[in-house]
């Protein structure tokens, strides 16, 4: 086990470096990094202004802009080659310096700190919804496998997996918030109760397709488990079916669900970009989309890095958990 963990940790560190390097060089090599950082200001002829060669009607403004450009050059080490810049940038990251948002001069770390809770609440609620729906659904489908309910649920989950989540979000928003007015149509943050209540629809939008795929996995595993001897034994003892399903069969059937938990969180993060947009939730996903539209590159880069690293670490943890649950995995 120890050797396996060490091997995985080495891989984790390598992947983290590769992911950050890929993201960083994409930002720096695709397009002019100075333009990426300071936008139109990069076109200013600062040397000319300083030498007094270029006339500028708003000298004060221009020299201030030139200061901005110089500061950006300095902060992102733009006079260095990309690999050096990368190393310096990682150094900044490790000391907690994520750069400054080019849009409103806020430190990026503060922007993230403000927006992160909303996204975390949304993701947690989505996972709760999906597991809460998938477990009873999968159990019933497996218990009555190949009967009407199971066949129907196969069709239903196939359909759910084919709805793009933005389409599902719009349809749910229309039906439940506008037509029948069960849930609020937009984000509310008056108090925690209102916040959670207004996040129900977004969480359902994210969680329902995930529930469909969890249900498929759980059903398949449960059907296999139900043929095990200890289940026959429990039946022979006369235990009620519900108890057999939930106490005896469910736990050993959760392996596949645990495995895809990490991967599915990545899909959820992708989905949250869209869902936060539909329901107007001021979270990380909305922030990154706004930042992309406004070319606010420090924010985009920081959020992409944050999300990718979280995703990598999460999958690493799930891998460890899984290999602890099932020792055969380590042999691979």
């Amino acid at each position, binding site marked *: 086990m120890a050797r396996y963990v060490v091997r995985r940790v080495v*891989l984790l560190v*390598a*992947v983290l470096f*590769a*992911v950050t390097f*890929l*993201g960083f060089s*994409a*930002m720096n090599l*695709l*397009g002019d990094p100075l333009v*990426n950082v300071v936008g139109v200001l990069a076109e200013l002829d600062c040397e000319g202004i300083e030498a007094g060669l270029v006339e500028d009607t708003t000298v004060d403004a221009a020299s201030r802009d030139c200061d901005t450009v110089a500061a950006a050059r300095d902060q992102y080490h733009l006079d260095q080659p990309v690999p050096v810049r990368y190393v310096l940038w990682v150094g900044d990251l490790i000391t907690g310096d994520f750069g400054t948002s080019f849009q409103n001069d806020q430190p990026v770390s503060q922007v993230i700190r403000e927006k992160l809770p909303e996204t975390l609440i949304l993701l947690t609620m989505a996972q709760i919804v999906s597991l809460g729906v998938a477990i009873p659904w999968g159990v019933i489908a497996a*218990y009555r*496998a*190949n009967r009407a309910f199971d066949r129907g649920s196969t069709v239903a989950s*196939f*359909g759910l*997996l*084919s*709805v*793009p*989540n*933005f*389409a599902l979000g*719009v*349809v749910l*928003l*229309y039906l439940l918030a*506008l037509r029948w007015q069960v849930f609020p*149509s*937009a984000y509310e943050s008056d108090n925690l109760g209102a916040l959670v209540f207004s996040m129900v629809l977004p969480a359902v939008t994210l969680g329902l397709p995930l529930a469909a795929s969890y249900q498929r996995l759980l059903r398949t595993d449960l*059907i296999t488990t*139900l*043929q095990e*001897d200890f289940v*026959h034994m429990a*039946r*022979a003892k006369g235990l009620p079916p519900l108890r057999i399903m939930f106490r005896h069969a469910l736990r050993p059937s959760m392996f596949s669900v645990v495995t895809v938990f990490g991967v599915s969180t*990545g*899909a959820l*993060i*992708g*989905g949250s*970009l*869209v869902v936060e*947009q*539909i329901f107007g939730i001021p979270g990380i996903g909305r922030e*990154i*989309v706004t930042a*992309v*539209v406004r*070319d606010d*590159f420090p924010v*985009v880069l920081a959020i*992409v890095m944050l*999300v*990718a690293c979280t*995703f*990598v670490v999460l*999958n690493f943890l799930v891998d460890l958990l899984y290999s602890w649950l099932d020792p055969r995995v380590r042999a691979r």
Partner: protein
Amino acid sequence: MTADDRRTGNLTASGEGPVSRKGRASRERLLERFRILRLVRSSRVPDDGPAEDAAVRRRLGFSFWLAVAWLLIMAFVAVFAPMLPVADPTKVAFSGPREPPSADAWFGTDALGRDVFSRTMHGARISLAVGGFAIVFGMVVGGSLGIVAGYFRGRLDQAVGFAFFVLLSFPSLVLAILITATLDRSLLVVSLTIGILAVAPVGLLARASTLVFAEREFVAAARVLGARHGRIIVRELLPNVVIPMGALTLLGMAIAVVAEGSLAFLGLSVAGEDAISWGKMIVDGAGLRDLQNATHVTMFPVVVMFVTVLSLNFAGDRIRQYFDVKELAF
């Protein structure tokens, strides 16, 4: 019922004690035992035996052809949209904005008074073009990387495997945003972006099937006959690996179409006034006021997109079953 089940069944029925013993009590116990056995059996799922499985696999079924028909219609519409006798998708109609569906405008008009039916038809162009290009790109790049890595093994395999792992470490939409954020949003860039997303999953699939086939006798035979690596890869491995890859084409395309829709929904897909895409149409009509008063603007593209993705998934899944390919990476 599989052979395995039958064995356990026999074991329980002809096992120790009660069968040979006399007396009422023991007979009752025996009956009880059979009752339990029946209970256990009835709750079991009959595994698809090999014969039944093959029968299912060899028949694509009516609904498969229904899905294919829809996809063909969509492809036809996508290719010939500019030539079809429909309204100009960018021109403001005479009937005014937010008109409900009528004989003139079958799907009504949107907030700017443009014909929704015509826009939905034109929207198929970008959605399907991006989806198709992306999966072809993923197959060519990912497929060749996967085959080469799986055939040569060793360092190369490790390097390619690591690259795939890194690509898969980005949540796909986030990676797509990273690329479209830094480059301009032309059709080519968006297609390439989603194509890059497809490289790693397709590559892993190609690598896995190459590993299987590279061990087979006909590859060894070719090597003994003195065939070069290139010839073995192209003549022996490729035809075998292409089948599972091809069987997953439609499933991959469904994912690509949804990915393009998500980008378009976020306003990060192909830019421009005449670049119509389903995702963009859906977000255009998704404002609360439009959703309330002119639901048709959003719902028609939603339905068309859903049916298209469903058809891709359904037909793709049938083809996958037909060729008996296990889903590995998707």
